Each structure stands twice: as C-alpha cells, then as structure tokens.
C-alpha cells in the first residue's frame, strides 16, 4: 500500500461518494468526473496505459458530457424542488452495506492473494491490437454492431416526434 495508492484511492472514493451524495445534479457529475480521473490514474499505476487513457477519453470526455446534457434537458423550471433521497433509501443503504460486508469478508479470507508478486507486465498497444484482431475478433465485431445499434437507438429515442400539420 504505497503512498500514491492511498492518495489516489482517497481521491477516487471522495469523488464517487460526493457523486452519489450531493444535491445539485451538475455538482454530482463533476465529482463523478473527478472519480473517473482518479480511476484512470489507478489504471496507469497498475501499468495499463491504454486502458487508462481510454478511460479518460471515453468517460471524462464523453459520458460526463452526456450526463450533463441530459441533466440540462430534464431540469424543470422549478429547480431543486424534489427531494434527494428515494422513499426506500434505508433499505437500499442496508443492502449496499451488506453487499460490501460480504465482498470484504470474501476478499480478506480468500487465498487468491499471491505471495510472490509478478513483475510489471510490459504491454504495448501493438499487442492489444494483435489480440483484438486474432483472439478477440468476434467480440470486436459484436461490439461494433452493439455500438451501431446503441447509436441508432439513442437517436430514435431522443428524437422529437414530428407533429403532422393539419
């Protein structure tokens, strides 16, 4: 548990907790962006350069902007008139706490922690491209179809219906 891991973990947890806890929706998304950046830094620390930069490019650069656009378009004129918490928030929090307890118990008591840590793997983007084209070509093509379907679906869902002129 190095110092850099502790700092990044604290930053990420603070960002994500703020994202789930703040009242103002745009503040939530900005805290979420901070959490995404912290996660990208953790990926870089683990040696996955490509994934770290892709996380910034996709999540910070696209998903966060998408979320703020959706918040802009679904805000009623009254502003923050609705309450923040759902009516079943007690049950939800208890369930989430129970899930964390079970996961933490499973992690700490498992034998999966290696005693001899392997050295940093050197992965180049060439190897990722090679793997995408040889071993993972079927998931790649399916992801292409999925993204096309999602693109068309999102456009159709968000399109304004044309009103016929009488």
């Amino acid at each position, binding site marked *: *548990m190095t110092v850099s*891991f502790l700092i990044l973990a604290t930053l990420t*947890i603070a960002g*994500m907790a703020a*994202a*789930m806890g703040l009242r103002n*929706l745009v503040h*939530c998304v900005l805290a*979420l962006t901070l*959490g*995404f950046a912290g*996660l990208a830094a*953790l990926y870089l620390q*683990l*040696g*996955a350069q*490509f*994934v770290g930069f892709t*996380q910034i490019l*996709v*999540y910070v650069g696209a*998903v966060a902007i*998408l*979320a703020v656009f*959706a918040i802009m*378009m*679904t805000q*009623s004129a009254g502003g923050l008139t*609705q*309450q*923040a*918490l*759902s009516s079943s*928030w007690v049950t*939800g929090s208890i*369930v*989430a*706490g129970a*899930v964390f307890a079970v*996961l*933490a118990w499973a*992690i700490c008591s498992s034998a999966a*922690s*290696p005693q001899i*840590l*392997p050295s940093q793997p050197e*992965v180049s983007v060439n*190897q*990722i491209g090679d*793997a995408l084209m040889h071993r*993972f070509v079927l998931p790649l093509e399916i*992801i292409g179809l*999925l993204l096309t379907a*999602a*693109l068309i*679906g*999102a*456009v159709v*869902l*968000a399109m304004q219906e044309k009103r016929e002129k009488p």
Partner: protein
Amino acid sequence: MSPLTSYLLLSALLFSIGLAGALARRSAILVLIGIELMLNAANLNFIAFWRYGPNPAALTGVMFTIFSISVAAAEAAVGLGIILAVYRHAKTTDLDQMDSMKG
C-alpha cells in the same frame, strides 16, 4: 495486506457506493450514474487481477476492460435517451412518481 487485496477492497467499496447511490437516490439520472460507477468498479477489479494474476501476457483483463468501457458508454447513451423520452412524457425524472404502467 498485499497490493492485490487493497485494490480488490477499493473496488468493492466503489461498487457498494454505486449500489447505495443507485438504490437510494430519487433522480433517474443519478441511478444511471450509480450503474456507471458499478461498472467502473468491476473494471478496476479486472485490471488488478490482470496485473497481479498468473498470466498477464494473455491480456485478458485489459481486453475485457476495453469491451466493458465501450458497452458501458453505449448503455449510458441509450439509458439517457430513455430518460429524456420519459421526461418528455411525464415532465419529471422522479422515480418514485413513475409507479404506474398506464400512459
């Protein structure tokens, strides 16, 4: 505590924060953000196991994470499109008020 255990605990904590947010918040957009958070926690898990696992040269963890990021982005787009369509109909994103199938 080995580094792998610390990363796994961090991702479990992030997952439960996302789950708590998705279950306890009223706005539909925040539920979607909670789901994104859960997916990110799973990605961190994958990368941690890739780094400290037995066979990092097979790149399985990295590949799974790349696909998971793309699927999550597509799902966020479609989910927010659905929220927009529902908002146009019901004029609110409050999930507690969407409790009837009629309309």
